[in-house]
Structures are given as structure tokens and as C-alpha cells.
């Protein structure tokens, strides 16, 4: 099977696989594709097995797509996080055999709630639960970061491999002089290489890169599991707040906990609520208080450094999308338009690396 199965064919393929898991043939109905996600497909369905009924979702990685964590590793880190109090939908089954539906997949429980940022922020504003949600996210971070990294699945991504597959391997740069994994250095070395591949120089991004090297923090006291993409858009939210954290494909075994906290604080993830630093939901104080109450240890300098790094990474990503359009790898008006979004990220980056005591005049 070359393409991922759809419709009735997909339902039959899922029934074939789940029959092996369950020992009897289940019936799948109400199969419904989520429109979100190009790299991963989420398919909702109801499973009936004898008298039992369950509302489930299959997350499928099309074979051709670049896989970050292998599906079994992603399923295992989800299960580990869930066992440690991080809200994650329960995993029902994992399939690494691409022959069933045309790609590896896992099946998990379906959790009701909003995921689309615009709707999440409207719900949060209507109910006045922005602070609650931000605090719940902070507590989830703290629980994730408290897990012994040795318990992670052995094939979970490592920070030391950042960059492989995108550009030349950066392994030497990803280690500090003593040979230990240094997530900040690894991430920055990756961006340094990408910067040199830009078809046109972007001095504002270059100045950001320069600042990041000048302010590179020492390796963190403790490397922790990191999700690397927790933000509004990757969480399921109900009237009670945080219900589940999704998309663990980029989770790593040896990250800097502050990179997780900094990510939802990027301006682009505030969805125009610029004055609420944490995901457009709440201020930084809420995040810090809840993270520390749940056992985490906040580090402001590292938090700021990772914010600048994330902003630079996104700016380079947009420039890369425009390049992919121009050189014909991926022709699309959306990719072309990304090139004109780079100045937004340049501005955000310049505001983050403002020299002490200097104001810009508008």
C-alpha cells in the first residue's frame, strides 16, 4: 500500500489490526477525518467490540513523511508522561507495521474539547480561565520535567542529534567541552548552519544568532525529558481548563526544561494577546508560580535565551519555506507568503535582544 488508506478501506484496515489486538473482530463506525495536520492525520472513530464501545482517535504518519520520534517511542513517552500525572490521552494500541493503513500509527482515547487556537482563546476569555489554563500547563511541565529520563523509551530523540536530517550532523557542536550533551549549544549550532544556507542575508536574524552565541548559557544542572512543542494549538481545552497535551512527536530525552517553558511564551503563540506572555493566556508570574509550586525550578536567563532561540528558529523556518517555493521544492502561495512574514519574527527577536538601557523610538 503506497498511500494512506481512506474511508471504508481505512475502517477495514483498522478493524483488521484491532482484531489481532483484541482477539475478536471489532466494528468501526462514524469514521471522521480531522482537517488539521498535514504531516500527521488524525482519524476519529467509534469502536464497538461486543458490548463495549469506545470513542478513539488514530494518529497516522504517512510513510513518506519525515518521522521525528518513531511511533512506538512517541506512544511510550505519552504513556510514561500520563503515568506521572501529565494529562495525555490513554494509548489504546500501537502499530509500527505500515502495511495495515499505509503508515505507522497509534490509537488513543478521544478527549473532548477545543484545540484550534482561536476557539481555545475565545473559550478561555468567555470563562475567564486564562490563568487557570496557564497554571495547569506549568504544572504539567513540572511533572514532565521531574520524570527520571532513564525511564524514557531507548529510541526517543536526543538533543545531541538536533540537526541531523536537516543539514549536516552537528554532533561535535552539540557537546560541551567535557563531552556532555548540551541542548542549548546543539540547538544553536543547528541554526548557525541553517543561517548560512539562506539565499539572501538577513542581518537582523544574524544579530540574533550573534546574541545567542554571546549569551549561551552553561549546560543545565539537570537534563530532563522535554516535549518541545507545548502551546495553545497542541492542547485540548474544556471549560475546566487543560484536558490533554498532544503531539509528542518532537519529545526528547535530554533537554533543558526552560526550552519547554519558553516555547509558549513566543509572541506568535499569543495569537494577538501580546500582553499575556504565556500563550496569550496569562503573565509570566502565573507560569513561574505554578511551575515552582509543582516542584520545578525556574531560571529567568535561560527562559529568555530559549525565547530568543525559538523566535530565531521560526524566522529561519519561514525564510526556508519561501526558499522551498522559489527553488521549486514546494510551490505554494502560502510558502511564498512566509517570506514576507520573516520581518515579524525579526522584530520580535530584536525586542528580545534589546541592548540594556536602549529604547527604540517609534
Amino acid at each position, binding site marked *: 500500500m503506497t498511500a494512506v488508506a481512506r474511508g471504508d478501506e481505512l475502517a477495514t484496515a483498522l478493524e483488521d489490526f484491532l482484531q489481532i489486538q483484541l482477539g475478536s473482530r471489532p466494528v468501526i463506525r462514524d469514521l471522521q477525518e480531522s482537517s488539521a495536520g498535514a504531516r500527521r492525520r488524525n482519524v476519529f472513530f467509534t469502536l464497538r467490540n461486543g458490548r463495549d464501545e469506545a470513542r478513539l482517535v488514530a494518529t497516522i504518519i504517512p510513510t513518506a513523511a519525515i518521522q521525528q520520534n518513531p511511533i512506538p517511542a512517541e506512544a511510550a513517552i505519552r504513556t510514561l508522561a500520563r503515568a506521572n500525572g501529565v494529562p495525555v490521552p490513554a494509548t489504546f494500541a500501537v502499530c509500527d507495521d505500515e502495511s495495515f493503513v499505509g503508515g505507522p500509527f497509534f490509537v488513543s482515547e478521544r478527549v473532548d474539547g477545543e484545540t484550534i487556537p482561536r476557539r481555545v482563546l475565545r473559550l478561555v476569555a468567555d470563562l475567564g480561565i486564562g490563568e487557570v489554563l496557564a497554571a495547569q500547563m506549568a504544572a504539567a511541565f513540572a511533572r514532565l520535567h521531574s520524570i527520571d529520563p532513564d525511564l524514557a523509551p531507548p529510541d526517543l530523540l536526543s538533543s545531541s542529534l538536533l540537526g541531523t536530517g536537516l543539514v549536516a550532523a552537528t554532533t561535535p557542536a552539540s557537546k560541551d567541552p567535557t563531552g556532555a550533551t548540551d541542548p542549548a549549544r546543539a540547538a544553536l549550532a543547528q541554526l548557525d548552519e541553517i543561517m548560512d544556507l539562506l539565499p539572501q542575508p538577513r542581518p537582523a536574524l544574524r544579530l540574533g544568532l550573534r546574541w545567542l552565541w554571546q549569551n549561551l548559557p552553561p549546560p543545565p544542572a539537570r537534563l530532563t525529558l522535554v516535549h518541545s512543542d507545548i502551546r495553545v494549538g497542541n492542547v485540548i481545552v474544556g471549560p475546566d481548563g487543560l484536558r490533554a497535551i498532544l503531539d509528542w512527536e518532537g519529545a526528547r530525552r535530554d533537554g533543558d526544561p526552560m526550552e519547554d517553558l519558553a516555547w509558549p511564551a513566543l509572541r506568535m503563540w499569543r495569537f494577538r494577546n501580546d500582553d499575556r506572555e504565556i500563550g496569550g493566556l496569562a503573565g509570566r508570574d502565573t507560569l513561574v508560580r505554578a511551575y515552582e509550586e509543582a516542584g520545578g525550578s525556574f531560571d529567568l536567563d535561560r527562559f529568555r535565551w530559549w525565547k530568543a532561540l525559538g523566535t530565531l528558529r521560526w524566522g529561519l523556518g519561514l525564510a526556508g519555506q519561501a526558499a522551498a517555493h522559489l527553488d521549486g521544492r514546494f510551490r505554494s502561495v502560502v510558502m511564498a*507568503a512566509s517570506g514576507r512574514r520573516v520581518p*515579524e519574527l525579526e522584530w520580535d527577536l530584536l525586542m528580545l535582544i534589546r541592548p540594556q538601557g536602549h529604547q527604540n523610538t517609534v
Partner: protein
Amino acid sequence: MSSPPNADELLEAIGELLETDVMPAVPGDLQHRVRVAANLVQILRREWRLGPEQDALEHAALRDLVGPDRSTADMSTGELLAALDGLLKEDAATPADIDVQAWHVLVAVVQGELAIVKPGHDQWQGE
């Protein structure tokens, strides 16, 4: 001189077509791309009005920063950008306060471009 409508007026007509006629007539998965295209039309209209002045300001600001010890008189904006990029790659770049100087110039340059691609984005100046 070309016959009217001018470029801005033609772009305006294309924008109206995309927003008023095309958007409601296409399926959902295409609407996002049409919306992006309509926004690009607005960017091009602002570029048509503001572009030349912004290019001149950018060129002058970059020349002041990169020169005067380099022969910047005849350099294009692209060459100045490459020169500044090269300067910022050096560990011990000159002048000593290049980071601060470059920051101020780039804030102004980026601000000029934002007036075209995303007016108002520079209103937020915090972290």
C-alpha cells in the same frame, strides 16, 4: 506612462475579486490559500506606495552603519546587507559597539518593512 488603471488600482481590483467573489465560492481547504493571496495583494499595494521610500531609507541606514572605512558609495542594498551580515559573523567585529549600533539600525529597517508587510506589528515592543 502606462494607461490607467495604475498598478495600485489593478491590485485593488484583484483584491476585491479574491475577497468578494472567489473566497465564498471555493471549498474550505482552498479558502486559506485564497485568504493568503488576498493578503499578499494588500502587501503589494502598500509596497507600491511605500516601497521606494523604504528602500532609500534602508540603503542610507545600512551605508552609514557599514561604512565609512569600506567603499560603500556604490554598493547596492543587497551588497550592504551581505557586508553587514559578514561583519556580524566576525567575533571581534569593528566598531566595538557594533551590536548596539546594528540593533538600532536594524530596528529601523525592520520597522520600515513591517509598515508594508504587517502594519502595527511594531506596536508591541515588550518581551
